[in-house]
């Protein structure tokens, strides 16, 4: 008989994980202490935006039970603590809510239940949880904003922290994990907790390499995008390597893990200088748009009108936490701006003269410069010739190369993106 699986904490992580659990055929219990959130979920209002999530939740309606009463978890054989862990500006986790949630959940679990910590905790956390160690596990989550459903449905592997990794996992837990058809890697609690951090450190290391060399490209006339395919064909780097340059890491989870490594290094006397360099590089990259905006537009245009496309932290999400776009806009308060985002409203913006447009091209009307801050797929449909018709100026800052650069250049724009020198008709 299939186990009933419970998820405590209906945040981004919990909702996506629960939906995937139901889709794999398990009756799934969704618990959150916030009754309003549970009411919304019961009515089909999903508080997070992810491609395919709404459809998945609707299709699994009969397998999903929502409740704000912890007693609902008593029926579950496997219960995940799946709440997002808040971080401060320095990336430090605030675990008070998680401790409280665990306490609430434990007092309602059946004695034989498996308790799994799924949320982002530091090494050493799971071992201290007051639940019998043979039924206590830590499971690495690898949620990616904008790809959360895909990741939850088809994980590359399960990394499981256990007290005794050499022992077989309890049957109910194993049955659940095997339904996803991926490798299961048991290891000690601390190894699993650090594995999660290790994954993110590898990603940040690659991103930092890309950012560092992309900036060199911008100065010496090379094009990082020409180099990337060569790197991907190298087996030591690989086709899925995180080697696209960006505007610094954002979203909170990677920063959290870097902060944790720095803290662990400080506590145990290990060398984390390279991690601090990554953090430094990330902060530097966050201001890339501000720098090129000043050097290419504001230095020459005293009364600019600035159009910003994209407010969300990244495409396919409603999240604005650590959004590079909102961070940029805080430094543009001396000039009028026009914004458009497919999901986020202009009311999220703190700016004295911000107009919301109803389309990308309308946002660009009479603008001296157009900045594409979030690479939403729908921005790819913008035709450079249409921008030519409505814009006053001739500068496009498109860090992620959403628009066709050569076409922008051909119709007279100076086109500026990450990893290549500014391109214009000159």
């Amino acid at each position, binding site marked *: 008989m299939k186990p009933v699986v419970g998820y405590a904490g209906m945040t981004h992580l919990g909702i996506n994980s629960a939906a995937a659990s139901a889709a794999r055929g398990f009756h799934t219990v969704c618990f959150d202490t916030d009754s309003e959130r549970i009411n919304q979920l019961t009515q089909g209002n999903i508080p997070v935006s992810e491609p395919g999530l709404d459809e998945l939740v609707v299709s699994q309606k009969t397998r999903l039970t929502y409740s704000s009463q912890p007693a609902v978890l008593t029926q579950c054989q496997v219960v995940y603590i799946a709440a997002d862990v808040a971080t401060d500006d320095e990336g430090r986790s605030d675990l008070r809510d998680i401790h409280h949630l665990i306490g609430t959940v434990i007092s309602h679990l059946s004695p034989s239940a498996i308790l799994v910590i799924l949320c982002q905790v530091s090494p050493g956390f799971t071992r201290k949880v007051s639940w019998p160690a043979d039924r206590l596990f830590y499971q690495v989550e690898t949620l990616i904003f904008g790809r959360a459903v895909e990741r939850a449905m088809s994980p590359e592997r399960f990394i499981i922290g256990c007290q005794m990794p050499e022992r077989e996992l309890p049957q109910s837990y194993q049955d659940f994990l095997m339904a996803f058809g991926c490798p299961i890697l048991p290891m000690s609690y601390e190894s699993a907790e650090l594995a999660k951090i290790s994954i993110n450190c590898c990603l940040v290391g690659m991103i930092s390499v890309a950012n560092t060399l992309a900036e060199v490209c911008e100065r010496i006339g090379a094009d990082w995008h020409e180099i990337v395919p060569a790197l991907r064909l190298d087996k030591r780097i690989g086709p899925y390597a995180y080697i696209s340059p960006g505007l610094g890491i954002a979203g909170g989870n990677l920063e959290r893990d870097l902060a944790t490594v720095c803290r662990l290094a400080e506590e145990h006397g290990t060398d984390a200088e390279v991690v601090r360099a990554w953090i*430094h590089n990330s902060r*530097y990259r966050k*201001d890339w748009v*501000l*720098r090129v905006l*000043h*050097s290419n537009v*504001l*230095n020459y245009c005293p009364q600019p009108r600035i159009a910003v496309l994209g407010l969300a932290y990244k495409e396919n999400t409603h999240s604005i936490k650590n959004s590079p776009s909102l961070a940029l806009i805080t*430094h*543009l*308060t*001396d000039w009028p701006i026009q914004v458009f985002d497919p999901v986020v409203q202009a009311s999220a913006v703190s700016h004295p003269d911000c107009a919301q447009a109803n389309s990308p091209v309308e946002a660009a009307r009479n603008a001296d410069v157009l900045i594409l801050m979030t690479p939403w797929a729908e921005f790819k449909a913008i035709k450079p010739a249409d921008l030519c018709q409505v814009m006053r100026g001739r500068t496009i800052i498109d860090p992620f190369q959403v628009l066709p650069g050569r076409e922008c250049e051909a119709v007279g724009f100076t086109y500026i993106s990450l990893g290549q020198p500014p391109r214009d008709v000159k």
Partner: protein
Amino acid sequence: MLVHHHSTPTLPTRVVVLGAGGFVGGAIVRRLLADRIAVLPLTRNDVNLMEADACEKLRAILRPTDSLVFVSAVAPAKTVPMLMQNLRMAEVVCEVLSSMTVDHLVYVSSDAVYADDANPVRECSPIAPTTLHGLMHAARELMLKSSTQAPVACLRPTLIYGSLDPHNGYGPNRFRRQAAKGESIQIFGEGEEQRDHVLVDDVARVVSLVVAARSSGALNVVTGVSTSFKRIADMIASQFGVDVVSQPRPGPRPHLLHRFFDITQIHKAFPTFQCTPLEQGLEQARKGAE
């Protein structure tokens, strides 16, 4: 980075400029006056920071509502005696600030406080001076910050040029003087070292902005554009119609070959502020010298 304690620019009651007789101090006084800010310029004739009565004199002048701009220095501090002399001058100011309050303190420091290899230099780059001059400014910054409760802004200009610069160091000022005499401009080697040069009037403009915003923290006063000495020499040579001649270096190639700055913090602190482009600044310096 700077934090503004006034959300909108506010004219201070009075700005006392200590070191108003110098190249930078004089430019600051002129800028503040042009910005209609009440200024009390103090030169060494008014308060000589090396004399025994300096504390008493300065304390009698300062008011709690004053913004104090501290520019005085014997610069560059090339020897240990010069270093100690500069520290004693700062000690006087610290002693006064410890015994009375002012509204705001602006210290004109230097980019010499940073390590030579801190490229690109940012305000968060480690303070690791490699010269006595840099050590002097780094020490003074710490001394001042530890002596007052008032907001303290440490401004760290890079190489400053302008028509009234009394120094004749290798760079725009010396090149201009050579050219003005009709001589060839002499550069060392290929003159390939790239440095950032900031016009003294731009330093003064930043001081005025910082005073009006009552800012605290650190800010590099730089243009963000580094130019080779050869290029600078060529610009000045074309103004005066003289040649540029390469001379053998007097010593080994400098350890600090290039220095670049990341000017993001200026953009954030004063979004509409722009430094004078080098070519335009050199032209202003030429006209000023005439």
